[in-house]
């Protein structure tokens, strides 16, 4: 993706100095300037922000990302597409955080609508949006947070038959599902597409997650073969309090960021179980 000299010139002229809390100065560019340069050049906001980063100019909303992932990491995020399957408790929080982090394109797949019983834990669910499609509300929320991020809502139930079509553009797929058969279908599709899958589930005050690259051990090591498995787990009876989805979704987002930027060490071949009830984090090394 290259932009013209005129755009580069406008970026340089529009750059301001931001003084970070540590006293260090950084060249930055604000939202209004990005909007205006995009309009002037007839290019997308994403192209403008990537061009800015290439010039060492940080879009203001990403300034606090720099100390961890840097300019190069932020560019990789902006150039990436992430699919979030399910936009409920886990998925809604994942969408919110990915947009704030500055992912370039988020695909939200969910055919469900918000219901009143979702209000306790689904971040994107509000009283005003009851009855509305989760994927559509998620896409609107993304645009409110970060207009640079392209949001593609898919009001469809993911199945083995349509998984490739829905996930083919994603660099990483994040799990916001609420049943085991769909998770196995997504895992299978991700393996076939060569796409990393960030798995997560919740029940009560506990949740678990791991990142599955093609070739890694996966859901079968935890659950056994999918045939004969129940569709749901103990969450059907013990429910899910408000903070549990946020606890697991936040870590899933960290996994997505690590996979895309190459920063840190993803949770591969290891199941992390977070138990807020007992205040314990367990890690199980998985075998094949």
């Amino acid at each position, binding site marked *: 993706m290259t932009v013209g000299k005129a755009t580069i010139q406008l970026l340089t002229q529009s750059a301001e100095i931001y003084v970070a809390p540590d006293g260090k100065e950084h060249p930055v560019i604000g939202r209004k300037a990005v909007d205006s340069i995009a309009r002037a050049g007839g290019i997308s906001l994403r192209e403008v922000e990537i061009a800015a980063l290439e010039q060492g100019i940080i879009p203001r909303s990403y300034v606090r990302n720099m100390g961890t992932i840097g300019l190069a990491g932020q560019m990789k995020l902006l150039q990436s597409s992430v699919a979030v399957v399910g936009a409920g408790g886990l998925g809604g929080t994942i969408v919110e955080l990915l947009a704030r982090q500055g992912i370039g394109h988020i695909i939200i797949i969910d055919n469900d609508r918000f219901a009143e019983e979702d209000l306790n834990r689904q971040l994107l669910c509000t009283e005003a949006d009851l009855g509305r499609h989760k994927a559509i509300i998620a896409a609107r929320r993304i645009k409110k947070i970060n207009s640079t991020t392209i949001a593609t809502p898919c009001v469809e139930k993911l199945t083995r038959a349509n998984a490739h079509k829905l996930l083919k553009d994603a660099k990483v797929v994040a799990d916001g599902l609420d049943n085991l058969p769909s998770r196995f279908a997504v895992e299978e599709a991700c393996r076939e597409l060569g796409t990393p899958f960030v798995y*997560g589930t919740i029940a009560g005050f506990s949740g678990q997650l791991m990142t599955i690259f093609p070739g890694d051990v996966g859901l079968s090591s935890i659950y056994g073969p999918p045939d004969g498995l129940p569709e749901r787990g103990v969450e059907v009876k013990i429910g899910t309090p408000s903070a549990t989805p946020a606890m697991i979704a936040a870590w899933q987002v960290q996994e997505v960021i690590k996979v895309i930027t190459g920063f840190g060490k993803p949770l591969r071949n290891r199941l992390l179980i977070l138990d807020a*009830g007992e205040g314990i984090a367990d890690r199980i090394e998985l075998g094949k």
Partner: protein
Amino acid sequence: MASITVQFHSLYRLYLCIDRLSLQADDLDEALGQMEEKFGSRLREQFEKRGIELDQKMQDFSLILLNGINIRNLRETKLREGDTLHIFPPSAGG
């Protein structure tokens, strides 16, 4: 007879008030039998208190991993010194 470690996770640790124990057993069936005898009824009672009626053995409603592999995937069930069993309830919420 192999000495193995059993680790309980998430709800099971809460319900049984134990995080790990050692068992002596030759094979998986023997280890699961001992676990059922020690913990099966207590676990079912805890679930019943929360409105979950279970009439199966704990191995039938739990996820059990031997050295990180679900036991439903295993062909060989002989236990070796130092093996670890992880046991926790299935969760699928999102």
